[in-house]
């Protein structure tokens, strides 16, 4: 199994969720994160003090998927998350030796 972690632009979340659901993925876990990268942040002004904010709001989507589909899933996410503008994000793929579903105690691919 693979654990796919995608850092995307927040307004793309719904499309990404839809895309992976269409591939039969039944679950994802989502976290609000701050990204620092090539995409510029913005400046903020508080009573004359100007701050550069380098961090940009991003959304992290994590999915455990079966080895058979991970490439498809990565591709699908990349396709819908792409705007072509800087800051579109990254997808990381990690090997995932073991998964357990808490409710049933199932493990391995059945647990996803």
């Amino acid at each position, binding site marked *: 199994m693979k654990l796919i972690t995608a850092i995307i632009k927040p*307004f793309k979340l*719904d499309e990404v969720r839809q895309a992976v659901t269409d591939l039969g993925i039944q679950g994802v876990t989502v976290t609000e994160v701050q990204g620092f990268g090539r995409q510029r942040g*913005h*400046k*903020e*002004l*508080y009573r004359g003090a100007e701050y550069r*904010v380098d961090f940009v709001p991003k959304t992290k989507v994590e999915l455990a998927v079966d080895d058979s589909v991970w490439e498809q899933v990565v591709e699908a996410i990349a396709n819908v998350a792409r705007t072509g503008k800087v800051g579109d994000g990254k997808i990381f793929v990690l090997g995932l030796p073991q998964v357990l579903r808490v409710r049933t105690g199932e493990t391995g691919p059945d647990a996803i």
Partner: protein
Amino acid sequence: MKLPTLAQSSSSGSALRRIASALGLLAVSFAPLALAGTPPTPDKGDTAWMMTSTLLVILMTIPGLALFYGGMVRSKNVLSVLMQVFIIFCLATVLWVIYGYSVAFTAGNEFFGSFDKLFLKGVDSTTLAATFSKGVYIPEYVYVVFQGTFAAITPCLIVGAFAERMKFGAILVFILLWFTFAYLPVAHMVWYWDGPDAYTDATTAATALSHGGYLFQLGALDFAGGTVVHINAGIAGLIGALMVGKRLGYGTAAMPPHNLPLVMIGASLLWVGWFGFNVGSNLESNGFAGQVFLNTVLATAVATLVWTLIEWAVRGTPTMLGAASGAVAGLVAITPACGWVGPMGALAIGAAAGVVCLWAVTWLKHKLKYDDSLDVFGVHCIGGILGAILTGVFADPALGGAGFYDWVTMEVAPYDMTAQVIIQAKAVGVTLLWSGLVSLVAFKLIDLTIGLRASEETEREGLDTAEHGERAYG
């Protein structure tokens, strides 16, 4: 100005044959005013109440309206909304003193006043403004600043319609134009008159009437601003929403209010402040003011209950946003009526507002597919129209209303409900047309010059950081 010299300023009102605001006090105030004698001394209780009312309208605007609106947008845009309300309030206040008061509340033609009181020329702490009781006056400065808060909150109402996407600069230019060419003339048309002391016999009454604003002469009833404030602002908002276009993602992405407790605080402060708005419009602190107060609380309570119950029945969940929206709908609808109807009329108007405004923001908006971000049209314009029409109905003494007061005979005159409803409808129509047209032209001009709409990146990022260089929550 053809007012007697002792009353150095004239005053606004609602309609010629207006009911004396305190019937019980008429015997007292009836004493004919010796026109060449000493000026009347304002009652300190009236002055206290009018100052309280004025600050209540400020409370309604900042923070009330600002929070009500600010809580409803997404968190990336909350400051832009707070900022728009705050700055428009300041801008309109300054314009009011420079030329607004003069254009709205001095004699001129039926649509505009004069420039006689530019920069409040001739107004000082001793000049007076008339009320609705003969011989009863309040300090003109108090009247100036009370009316100034009306002129300041009204343009603020508009911005909710195109929240989350219009440029800050464009909004300010629009408000400058709209304030000047829509608010001031409509206020003059509806509220400018010579005051009750000008009505002594049939001849003076006719002369006095001819000085009034266009809709005043028509006999339209608008106690605290159904036409001048709500319809006026509501239609401007709709035009703006249509011209700037829908928000990115409207209809597909969820755009829930980012902070409903803020919305609730805002709605509550609107309600509390509205007592200044409505009861202050009585200009006196008397028994009739108590009736206006009661009407205001009643209509609002009923509208809230009705809106919430319908949601509960139809959708299964009575919502806090629904309750807050119902309250505002009730407040809007009772505004033109609050000094003309009895408590049972207020109950009826409130109930109607709950039904009709809920219908407007769900069915009608969905049907017509405009993106009025915060339902300025559905609540203020539709609620204002409903209130204006129903004022014509429930002002009827046969329905517990106050009817018309004849300032010459000092008696309540016969009332023709159908005729009055038609007059009310005319006043609605004139306001819709006038404000709609001014808005159309103003938005078009701005669009062609500096542009109305923020860039896509700005809109995605949020107006707060992009236009104002700040984040709401650190």
